[in-house]
């Protein structure tokens, strides 16, 4: 039995297989409509989430399976003091697979060690969010036709953004990728990441102005400055509007550059950019469902 805790749990070859399956699901959705009949997905969300939970639920429903679960800790036994270890033992009796989000880092891993069913980490604090990374990789592969041989700009909160850290770790396994880190000095990418890139001989630069590097980019990954990661409201207010992607900046970019964003967006991408064909962040959400469908089938070992 396998779980998914970290995007690196899967080898590059295993990811290729997963994305091939997701591609097939996107092309032939009807082939999979009964694939999980009689199976149940438990969504155990100890903190609120809209997209991730609904995306998992949509994925299971598309496969003909059923869903059960809770969407905040207050409506679960956690409010009575039940441990994650005990909860997952119970959930294992009710469902065939579990997607867990928890504010405490490592909680899904604890669940996986005690679980009788596959557990998917649906986000644990500021630590990992592997299905977002799978979604990002799937979107790049589907729309660029390749994973590798490109320059990617990551912009915004590169210090606290877990999606950014996960994506960098996943992308370094592909050939000829150049990273441009675009952030204010206060939110620059952590040293352990730049150290890792230097050690692996991966090319990267750090820049402050988005305009300076727009023409070079094949991909731009925008992120939100998250209020909940700041201890100080003043710092948050000062940094939240540091980068706003608008039509003027987009005019500097290549015709085939793609803009991705893990969403939710606040105001870092102006709504005027939404109609630009290079803005693919809403398509990304669709790929998120296909990749989660492929993941559920893979972890349940269902072949169609």
């Amino acid at each position, binding site marked *: 039995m396998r779980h998914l805790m970290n995007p690196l749990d899967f080898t590059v070859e295993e990811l290729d297989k997963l994305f091939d399956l997701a591609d097939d699901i996107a092309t032939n959705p009807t082939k999979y409509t009964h694939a999980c009949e009689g199976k149940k997905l438990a969504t155990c969300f100890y903190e609120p989430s809209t997209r991730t939970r609904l995306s998992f639920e949509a994925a299971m429903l598309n496969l003909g399976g059923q869903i059960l679960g809770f969407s905040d800790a207050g409506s679960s036994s956690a409010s009575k003091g039940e441990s994650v270890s005990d909860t997952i033992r119970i959930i294992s009796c009710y469902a065939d697979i579990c997607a867990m989000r928890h504010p405490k880092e490592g909680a899904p891993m604890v669940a996986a060690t005690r679980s009788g069913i596959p557990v998917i980490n649906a986000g*644990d604090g500021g630590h990992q969010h592997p299905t977002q990374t799978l979604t990002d990789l799937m979107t790049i592969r589907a729309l660029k036709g390749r994973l590798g041989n490109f320059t990617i700009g990551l912009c915004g909160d590169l210090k606290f953004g877990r999606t950014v850290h996960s994506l960098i770790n996943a992308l370094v396994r592909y050939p000829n990728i150049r990273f441009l880190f675009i952030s204010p000095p206060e939110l620059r990418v952590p040293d352990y990441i730049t150290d890792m890139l230097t050690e692996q001989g991966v090319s990267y630069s750090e820049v402050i102005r988005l305009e300076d590097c727009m023409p070079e980019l094949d991909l731009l990954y925008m992120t939100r400055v998250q209020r909940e990661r700041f201890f100080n409201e003043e710092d948050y207010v000062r940094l939240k509007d540091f980068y706003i992607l608008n039509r003027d900046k987009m005019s500097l970019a290549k015709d085939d550059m793609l803009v991705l964003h893990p969403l939710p967006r606040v105001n870092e991408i102006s709504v005027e950019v939404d109609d630009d064909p290079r803005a693919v962040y809403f398509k990304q959400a669709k790929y998120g469902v296909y990749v989660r469908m492929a993941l559920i089938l893979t972890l349940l070992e269902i072949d169609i």
Partner: protein
Amino acid sequence: MLNVGKIEEGFVLDHIEAGKSLSIYHHLQLDKLDCTVAIIKNARSNKMGKKDILKVECDIDTLDLDVLAFIDHNITVNVIKDGEIVDKKELVLPKEIKNIIKCRNPRCITSIEQELPHIFVLADEEKEVYRCKYCEEKASDSTTPW
């Protein structure tokens, strides 16, 4: 000069940084063993100025010495049999340590689930970096000892 006699079988842990012997005594759980233990503090040392020494008279398979390497890999471990040194063990950093240090990340699951063991995994042998198995927080000098 204080004299502590030879032991017949067991270990002599030498070159312990002065003041650390009691912490090692607890980490090796020597308090739970029914054997003779000599704790020598602040012994004179040419190499270190001052050092601590632990003499433990026990079966040589009784002790898990992995933890020693994590605490201080400069400690010399002499294995004693029939009153003589028969082996000097080289300390190798353990791949994993359990309940030796506590994770200090307030967002780690170990901060709320009390019964969970605090496990750190050797992430970088060259730089001697250990990371929490659950949240990957780096163990540092300020990490809370158990």
